[in-house]
């Protein structure tokens, strides 16, 4: 097994070149089109997928020379070696009239216009190799659509998982790939809260994911990505939001499981007064590798954004944060804050932080960022120890407290307790040396 960034090398036992299998690779254009036709997808989508397959063939794997990939070396990862497997997808929602939340495949008929107009409108299939793979082969698609003024009071729950058999070698020994695609269209004045629960077994799994969020004027979209992958899952997600006038998009991500979680999370603040709120929590142990690349692009006047990413890292886990807040010349009156805090819980954990600001106009209210890296506060630890708590218990409490600001902000019922329990369980066995 090749050694570059630990664990990123392909876990495939045999490194057979799929190209040598006479174009039988599911990633080849012909196969992609054939599969799409087999599913009786509309012609435009077959074309879109074929285009994705062509982009996939024409695009090289990103190298660490590219800034967003500096700390995540995927040079030895071969996407083609991963056979797409059917996911288990369940959507639970109590929807207002006219709203839809369900499989994208079914929406192709029922919501043909919305899907055709919006799918791929924010994330082009040609943007990169993982995105191209997803464009060609997405197999776990979900559409959430709220028409103008529709308010969904209860969270829409999307459960997405891959069962044990599929990951365990049902695919002729090849490791599995899951290709989720999320399209959220919340029209003017509509509101929705979406929780995406991502689960997998401990079998090798590659997850190239794409999510697009379109928030109309004065709409509110809240999305929680709750990633509790199995220990050999590698996730590469691109999520992009378009935020309309006076609209709010809040995205929160919990990176708890998985071997590699690399998420590119972007907000395009195109409407006047648009607001983007991005929160993230990463809890690492062992060889876990988290990489967050964020963009808050302030295009319209009086747009605001807030980014808060917190990582607590045990074992030899690593967190990378590369966040760009850009205030364009046209964004007079913008305000933006970025915060990245890293707690190193062991001697081998690492954190890299690069909160970038590009401010192209003086007409800003305030733009700032802060980043810290360090161990838990010694005084706090000492205090807890003086109360008779052992080191591990004290750390469990301190880390749960560290995450609390994010958990409270997300304000989903039960999340704070749930996260505290996760912290407790994970740190009960984590390597804190």
């Amino acid at each position, binding site marked *: 097994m090749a050694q570059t960034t630990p664990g990123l090398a392909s876990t495939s036992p045999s490194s057979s070149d799929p190209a040598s299998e006479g174009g039988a690779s599911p990633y080849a254009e012909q196969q992609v089109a054939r599969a799409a036709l087999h599913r009786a997808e509309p012609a435009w989508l077959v074309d879109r997928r074929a285009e994705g397959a062509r982009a996939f063939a024409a695009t090289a794997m990103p190298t660490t020379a590219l800034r967003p990939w500096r700390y995540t070396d995927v040079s030895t990862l071969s996407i083609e070696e991963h056979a797409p497997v059917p996911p288990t997808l369940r959507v639970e929602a109590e929807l207002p009239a006219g709203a839809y939340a369900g499989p994208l495949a079914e929406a192709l008929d029922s919501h043909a216009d919305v899907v055709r107009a919006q799918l791929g409108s924010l994330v082009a299939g040609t943007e990169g190799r993982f995105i191209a793979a997803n464009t060609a082969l997405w197999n776990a698609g979900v559409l959430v659509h709220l028409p103008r003024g529709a308010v969904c009071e209860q969270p829409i729950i999307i459960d997405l998982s891959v069962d044990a058999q599929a990951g365990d070698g049902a695919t002729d020994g090849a490791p599995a790939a899951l290709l989720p695609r999320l399209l959220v269209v919340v029209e003017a004045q509509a509101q929705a809260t979406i929780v995406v629960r991502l689960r997998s077994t401990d079998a090798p799994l590659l997850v190239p994911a794409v999510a697009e969020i379109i928030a109309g004027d004065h709409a509110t979209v809240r999305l929680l990505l709750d990633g509790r992958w199995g220990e050999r899952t590698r996730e590469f997600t691109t999520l992009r939001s378009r935020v309309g006038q006076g609209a709010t998009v809040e995205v929160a991500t919990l990176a708890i499981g998985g071997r590699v979680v690399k998420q590119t999370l972007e907000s395009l603040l195109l409407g006047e007064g648009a607001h983007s709120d991005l929160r993230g929590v990463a809890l690492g142990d062992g060889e876990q590798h988290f990489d967050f690349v964020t963009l808050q692009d302030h295009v319209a006047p009086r747009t605001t954004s807030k980014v808060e990413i917190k990582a607590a890292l045990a074992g030899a886990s690593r967190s990378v944060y590369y966040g760009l807040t850009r205030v364009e010349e046209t964004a007079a009156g913008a305000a933006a804050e970025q915060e990245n805090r890293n707690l190193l819980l062991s001697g081998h954990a690492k954190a890299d*932080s690069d*909160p970038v600001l590009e401010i192209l106009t003086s007409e800003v209210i305030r733009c700032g960022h802060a980043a810290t890296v360090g161990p838990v506060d010694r005084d706090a630890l000492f205090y807890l120890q003086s109360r008779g708590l052992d080191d591990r218990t004290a750390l469990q409490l301190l880390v749960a407290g560290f995450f609390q600001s994010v958990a409270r902000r997300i304000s989903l019922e039960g999340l704070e307790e749930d996260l505290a329990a996760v912290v407790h369980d994970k740190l009960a066995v984590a390597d804190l040396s």
Partner: protein
Amino acid sequence: MTTVNPGARSVVGEYKWGFHDDEKPLFMAEAGHSEALVREISALKNEPEWMTEFRVNAYRTFLEKSDPTWAGSPELLAAIDFDKIHYYVRATDRDSTNWDDVPEYIKDTFDKLGIPEAEKQFLAGAGAQYDSEVVYHNIREDLAKQGVIFLGMDQGLAEHGDLVREHFGTLVPAADNRFAALNSAVWSGGSFIYVPPGVHVEVPLQAYFRINTESMGQFERTLIIADEGSYLHYVEGCTAPIYSTDSLHSAVVEIVVKKNARVRYTTIQNWSNNVYNLVTKRAAAYENAVMEWVDGNIGSKLTMKYPSVYLMEPGAHGEILSLAFAGDGQHQDAGGKVVHVAPRTTSAVVSKSVSRGSGRTSYRGLLKVHEGAEGSSSTVRCDALLLDEHSRSDTYPTMEVDEERVNIGHEASVSKLGEDQLFYLMSRGITEEEAAKMVVNGFVEPIVKELPMEYAIELNRLIELQMEGSVG
């Protein structure tokens, strides 16, 4: 009266601050570069063979290198025409340039700075001599008594070859980046300083005193070795707009700060607005040593300069104070790098930048803490002030932390000139322009106060000049 036009590329004759050596035939290289030219420069300077080899290898590296991929203004870098640059020019006609030929805007600036006539002429490259010669020699004598070596780099190489060879290119290898490679191939001028153990150099050493005899170069190379327990403050004086028809300045500075020593290196850069200022500065600080960079960037078209400190042994401390002011059409891409290699090392970076008109300032930093550098701490603080609607400010503060037992913090803020601050001052009868100057001066004060007094005064004046007409 000639219109003031900082962007004008009027020609006042050839570059004036070439290598000074009366025994060699006068020489000015053709524009453009070649390995033969590099060898010729070395031969003309009578350099030892190792230096010739160093230059030639560096030149080959230069040919292989391309511009850094992370450059903030790649289009500006791409505009540099390496074939049109004179890489080596000796004073051939120092007296033939007339003060009258110096563009009006340069003279105007000199007048406003209150620079003495003789000095003005020298700085403009039109003066035959600047009469600090005596001062310079007096200082030289005092230093010599203490065993301090303060020479031009070329002379340093000739007289202290072994010491130079031991350190030259060790902190900034030729392959470090494209411009360091170019400098390594064609360097000329710069300072060589050695401070013996325990010696405290009480007066700041200023390149200023030296430039009239040794001359400055576009590709100067400075090496400073502060031996154990010594102290030195070096001031690189580009205190007035230096008129240059050539548009590329690419220096390399290497500083070795040994155990318990302390070095402060102060630069006030005020190149004219047609100069690319692409400089590599790096220091290594050993046990309990202190290295401080005070770096002010006011002039140039594009500056890319990130003074670095490598904290090599326990207890070492590094400090970078960076000030940048970008006016119309300027891009100040400055910042600093600190690399914590050893335990209990500390560092502080403070950056203040001001952008006005279409000016752009970028803070670009790296803070690296290697595994094993336990007990280290660092703070990075960047503040940017934007004066005009079209001004731009960027902050690229990369932090890489591979060690748990450290305390690392970074904070940045970007704001515009506060309307309430202006309003308050104006309500006290101060004009808007004066008020803006006062706010900016207050903003940069934490850095300015670290400068020797005469530089602080000049810097304030420079900022006032930059601010002229900035309001309304």
